């Protein structure tokens, strides 16, 4: 489905992204409310959707992402599990193989590692190893990222552990409208999807979200603004950061293509290569460590598709090769508009 039309709504492209020009009913929601709305919509639309994880039931999730869902849909469809990530993902796989559409929550991305084995050896291999006899239409939702002064291990951003893993799509929205549409698409996807929610943005702002079901195609990035001099690529919580940097740049006479990737695997090759072939310069921004980070894949993609177009080496603005620091220092490891601006300057003046 084209992402500009939602049940009775019509969207039009404008400089700031898509805007609705004909309404069904919409609401001003925060990103986390949009997630809840997506879950609610899919619990209504598909009777085999189940939502579960630690504290998602009565408590409505530690971020309130599942607030009110158990009250509406009952304990059968929205439930608490034991504190057991391998168990959560493992049972989700079994459910998915047996006709359900599980949406499992991992409370923070830093707690997904105990489930890594289940995702690596079962969720992502089942279709292949049964030659299609069994499939795993499962979504794992998890908040990720730093910047909210959370305790240790609550701020990890290790998307690259999953973009490297064959057999799973990785999605990461940056705003309420897309959070809803992408999550619905993820739930409807016939294969496993890891859905990363930028926890720093959960309540950072509101945006228009239409009622009812609509989806946004997985695997497609979006151009947030068009420019001529440099391509800036980001996703999730880094999107507001790069937008601010792009504004600063504009004040310095540098105009940018700003790409929000939205899906991290598979990468949207066309949007990246078309843009860098126009600008010849690129800055990639992510929170994760530089080594092994998705930034390297983007550099590779540009190397593969656009070698002769590049006027300067791609600059990556990323976390260092360190664990997310204790929060007194976390801001020092997070890309900021200033650091992105410095990178823009350096690709421009190369």
């Amino acid at each position, binding site marked *: 489905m084209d992402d500009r039309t939602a049940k009775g709504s019509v969207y039009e492209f404008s400089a700031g992204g898509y805007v609705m020009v004909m309404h069904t009913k919409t609401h001003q929601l925060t990103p986390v409310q949009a997630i809840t709305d997506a879950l609610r919509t899919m619990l209504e639309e598909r009777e085999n959707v189940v939502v579960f994880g630690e504290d998602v039931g009565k408590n409505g999730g530690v971020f309130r992402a599942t607030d009110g869902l158990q009250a509406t849909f009952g304990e059968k469809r929205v439930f608490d599990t034991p504190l057991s990530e*391998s168990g959560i993902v493992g049972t989700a796989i079994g459910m998915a193989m*047996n006709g359900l559409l599980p949406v499992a929550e991992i409370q923070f991305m830093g707690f997904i590692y105990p489930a890594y084995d289940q995702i690596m050896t079962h969720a992502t291999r089942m279709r292949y190893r049964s030659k299609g006899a069994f499939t795993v239409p499962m979504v794992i939702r998890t908040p990720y990222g730093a910047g909210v002064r959370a305790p240790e291990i609550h701020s990890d951003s290790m998307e690259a552990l999953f973009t490297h893993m064959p057999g799973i799509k990785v999605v990461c929205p940056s705003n309420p409208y897309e959070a809803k549409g992408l999550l619905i698409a993820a739930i409807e996807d016939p294969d496993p999807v890891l859905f990363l929610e930028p926890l720093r943005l959960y309540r950072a702002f509101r945006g228009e979200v239409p009622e009812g079901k609509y989806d946004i195609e997985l695997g497609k990035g979006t151009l947030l603004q068009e420019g001529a001099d440099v391509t800036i690529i980001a996703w999730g919580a880094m999107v507001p950061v790069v937008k601010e940097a792009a504004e600063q740049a504009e004040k310095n006479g540098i105009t940018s293509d700003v790409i929000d990737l939205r899906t991290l*695997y598979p990468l949207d090759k066309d949007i990246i290569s078309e843009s860098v072939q126009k600008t010849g310069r690129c800055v990639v921004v992510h929170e994760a460590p530089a080594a092994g980070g998705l930034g390297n894949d983007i550099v590779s993609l540009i190397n593969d598709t656009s070698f002769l177009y590049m006027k300067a080496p791609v600059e990556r603005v990323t976390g260092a090769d360190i664990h997310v620091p204790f929060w007194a220092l976390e801001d020092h490891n997070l890309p900021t508009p200033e650091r992105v601006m410095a990178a823009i300057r350096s690709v421009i003046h190369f």
Partner: protein
Amino acid sequence: MVQDMKRAFPVIRIMDQNGKMTDDAYTDQIDKDFARTCYRQLVCMRAFDRKVINLQRQGRIGTYPGFEGQEAAQVGSALALREDDWMFPTYRDHAASITFGKSYNILSSWNGRLEGHVPPEGKYIVPPSVPIATQLPLAAGAAMANQYKESTQAVLTYFGDGATSEGDFHEGLNFASVFQAPVVFFNQNNQYAISVPIWKQMHSETIAQKSLAYGIPGIRIDGNDIFVVYFETKKALQRARSGGGPTLIEAVTWRYGAHTTADDPTKYRDQKVENEKRRRHDPITRLALFMKEYGYWDDTWAKALEEEVKAEIDEAVKDLESMPPANVSDMYDYMFEEPTWTIEQQKEAYMNFLRGDM
């Protein structure tokens, strides 16, 4: 409390080593047909296993994990399933899978062929798990889905003594117990995990007692007594179907041979034990003695059966060896329902390379 476990969980059998029934409540439930079905399947599975090991020695098949000695545990439990139940086996459970309806082509998976993992239409036989204990949470989840659908289908999953040390054993049983999911955890305690004997694997005296950690029923049975295996599995499945939650069954058994054809058991144990086990505990011998004892035996039948089984297995090997070569595109085509552009591009590039276009 700690000391009493071997008494709290004695090894239960209903047929003794000489084939005599020790509990007549069961004797009546076993007729000639059933006894012969059991016998046929045991003999057939053993012949299969030996054949594959021979094939491996001749280089006609890859590394293979044999199950000789464990036939009663696998066949007895598989026979207890209802046609539409789910099975989550391991790499060693081909006797169970085949008994439950998997075709002999399962063999081809040991020749690196995907085709060996595909179950017959309508059968819920999941491809065997290689990573130890990982299938237990899956089985719990599949059982939870049955609950959700208000289906009376149950789930049975196999695992070894070594598997009890993995976190997934614990998480799987805990989930199943909390949700009272209709799943039977069937442990084949063959007392070794490759070279590691059970007393280095755990400090508990039994595996059955681990059920106490989850507040679920647990039982320890003689895995070489096909009847106790059959009836206890049936009971556990029945309990599962009727809302009584999961059960842990420990079937004590022994693998006669190597862990796999790549393993040399003389490195870590005295294989003379094997002879002793064969002489005193063989599941097939025991069933034959039972049949003789209860008048279900017939030499001509047994002779004919042997021929029949041999022919069946020769046929299976012929099928294996006449398979067309593996289809290269399979490795790309089952990662996603719709391939990503990356995989599509990689496939195209490689196919071109194969054709010499590059």
